[in-house]
């Protein structure tokens, strides 16, 4: 018996044709995996010929478009856009509830995949016809149809950047095959890779932990931010959507407990407000902020808190560390807790009751935790470090027949 071997492929030469397949693409698209895909495409385009196959969609829910189908260029990348033939099925929620929680059939699961969209037969046909013209094809986001149905057409040259969470859809039938097929995985964090290994037993498929690359933080005026908002004493910052989905309600409860136990401080919430926040003197609600204002807030803060339970990268943690600001996260979020442990840039709380003590410990040693976090980010998120990891992924993936 042959146990299976990967021929050590000849080193990918400097110019490999790379295709990136992703559900949405553009400079004004908001979304974690979409942003990552664009960063990857643009970094690779510095040394490779890079194309993107995507849809005309702008909206992540309806898949409604503001882009035209056809080929265009964006920051050195050739972008092929294909039409989405139907917007998300209006019964989507109902279909989803059924396949996740109720008795259903295999056919229902495929119906769900299609109802979720973005359903673009022309995009899949492009992968079928043109896929072999690229040496490497990077597929983004396991959950959407272009990846679930596109990757199986070119497994011998595919990498999967799954951006997977521990969530119910991961166990649906369309993904049983997906996680056994690619030449290599690109994971955002070690925790994501561990999930992929645990769930699918695919240790034989090589992987690279990509993380992210970051531009240096801009100059920001912390004292001016404090003066503008009249903040005195310790300042704790949250950046992101202000919503229960990100556990901001939990944060407010823990905040009250902290004040009761340990005294005076101000909590600043920066981000789109999608829930009711009670008016109180110790909580400043900024709403949506500009990039410059965000950086100023981070510079002004003594600690940043990210209470969300599910996060694929926690980029705001990395930004806080760039400014030397330490962070506090829950221990039950494996991804963010893992980032904090690796960087030693803050503290975790194992229960809500531990939050006050964790925050207090970080505030007491701001410079030390913040400095460690900054050193880690400068090491791990420097562009040359990111490019090395990315090149490694492309080399593991490239089909050089």
């Amino acid at each position, binding site marked *: *018996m*042959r*146990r*299976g*071997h*990967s*021929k050590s492929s000849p080193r990918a030469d400097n110019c490999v044709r790379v295709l990136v397949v992703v559900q*949405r693409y553009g400079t004004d698209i*908001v*979304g*974690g*995996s*979409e942003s990552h895909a664009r960063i990857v495409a643009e970094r690779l385009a510095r040394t490779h010929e890079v194309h993107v196959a995507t849809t005309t969609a702008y909206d*992540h*829910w309806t898949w409604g478009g503001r882009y035209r189908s056809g080929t265009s260029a964006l920051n050195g990348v050739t972008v092929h856009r294909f039409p989405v033939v139907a917007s998300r099925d209006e019964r989507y929620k109902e279909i*989803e509830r059924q396949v*996740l929680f109720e008795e259903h*059939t*295999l*056919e229902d699961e495929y119906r769900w995949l299609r109802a*979720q969209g973005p359903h673009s*037969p022309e995009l*899949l*046909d492009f*992968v*079928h*016809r043109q*896929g072999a013209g690229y040496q490497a094809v990077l597929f983004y*986001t396991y*959950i959407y149809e272009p990846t679930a149905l596109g990757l*199986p*057409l*070119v*497994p*011998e040259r595919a990498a999967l950047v799954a*951006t997977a*969470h*521990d*969530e*119910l*859809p*991961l*166990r649906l*039938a369309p993904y*049983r*095959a997906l996680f*056994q*097929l690619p030449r290599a995985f690109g994971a955002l964090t070690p925790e994501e890779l561990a999930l992929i290994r645990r*769930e*699918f*037993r*695919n*240790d*034989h498929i090589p992987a690279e932990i990509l993380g992210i690359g970051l531009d240096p933080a801009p100059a920001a005026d912390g004292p001016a931010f404090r003066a503008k908002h009249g903040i005195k004493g310790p300042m704790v910052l949250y950046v992101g959507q202000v919503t229960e*989905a990100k556990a901001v309600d939990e944060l407010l409860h823990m905040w009250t407990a902290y004040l009761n136990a340990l005294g005076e401080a101000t909590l600043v919430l920066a981000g789109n407000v999608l829930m009711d926040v009670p008016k109180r003197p110790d909580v400043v609600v900024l709403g949506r902020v500009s990039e410059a204002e965000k950086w100023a807030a981070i510079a002004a803060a003594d600690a940043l808190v990210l209470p969300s*339970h*599910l996060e*694929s990268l926690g980029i705001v943690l990395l930004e806080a560390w760039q400014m030397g600001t330490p962070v506090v996260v829950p221990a039950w979020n494996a991804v963010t807790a893992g980032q904090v442990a690796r960087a030693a840039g803050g503290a975790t709380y194992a229960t809500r009751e531990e939050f006050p003590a964790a925050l207090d410990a970080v505030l007491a040693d701001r410079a030390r935790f913040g400095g460690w976090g900054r050193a880690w980010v400068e090491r791990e998120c420097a562009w040359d470090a990111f490019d090395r990891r990315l090149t490694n992924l492309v080399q593991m993936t490239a*089909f050089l*027949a």
Partner: protein
Amino acid sequence: MRSPTGGQRSSSRVGLRPPLSSSLGQSSLLVVIQRYGDVAGGAEAHARMLVRRLREHVDVEVATTTARDYWTWRSELTAGMTWVDGVRVHRFPVVKPRARVFRSYERRAFAGDHSLRDEIDFLDAQGPVTPELTEFLRRHGREFDHVMFFTYIYWTTVYGLPLLPERAVLVPTAHEEPAIALSMYRRVFHLPRAIAYNTAEERAMVERRFANARIPNDVVGVGVDVPADASPERFREAHGIDGPYFLYVGRIVESKGCRELFDLWAAKRFAGTLVLAGHQEMPIPERPDIRYLGQISDRDKWDALAGCAALLVPEVLQSLSIAALEAWAMRRPILCPSKAPVLASMSRRAAAGVPYASPAEFSEACELLLERPELGDRLGRSGRAFVDRTYTWPVVVEKHLDLFAEVRHRLS
């Protein structure tokens, strides 16, 4: 942006691990195949022989369709659970027969500039379309330690294997043909946890085409049951055949290369007879040096093989010639076209046959074997050694059990 379902934690983990039962006793195996039981067909016969051997080592069940005919897939057998050779067989209904205009789907999908839709339509048109079978695999497939899928080309494998890749063993029975170039088949060769090839040639072809060498695999094929008492004299007597003869066994049909064979034979007059046995599906030239015996019994076949100057295998496209293995088991050589990629290469490796590239080479080989019988004996002996090394049941069963162990190891 992510699906809004994020945040829901999995409460019920569907484990990939083999069921507990396997650690207590025998491991279990599900065989998935397009037809099973009293049906004609190489892969189907292969599967059934294998199941009969493997059931002594693993708990085997079969999942298949209600079809008997590989062309129409008409539902002729009763759906539900039944037994074949004492083995549990789950039959699922074929919901639509092969498309009546299948050839036009085939033409479209095989054209150079075809769409993905053309491929999907071709797979449905080819069939056998059995959604209840795939539903069964989704729900219950993980209750088996291993699931073997036979034949890469059919709907049952293309849509069934992706549901159980982590425990799948594929028996592709692949050869160079237009279908294997379709995009929809790439997943089939990249997904399984192990692949059991029929020949080293098949493995080389598949790995060249799909670059899937990372998947554990072995050349396994089938075993040959060699009778102890084969008798050329009994055969000659029964059919009144004198003098040296060349043998062809199998369906007598153009797709098996019989037209070419008859032309080669007619090009020259040999000091021997061409003996044909099998189902006749095309005209056979009327000549004194060609004898057609009709369909013969198994014992007759072994007797005939034991006495032939050589077995003629004119077919070009095949993944494994059982007849050639049987001839070698009887210590007789074979003749085959050198453009038959599998058999020509096998007979070279076995040093047990003569590939021919032209009519002149064919006649030369025949004459040599007639004039110098010791040459044929030597090739035949070397063929028997080749069969003993690879294609005997103990070896075949052992290799399967090794592949199964590899699957379990990666799942544990």
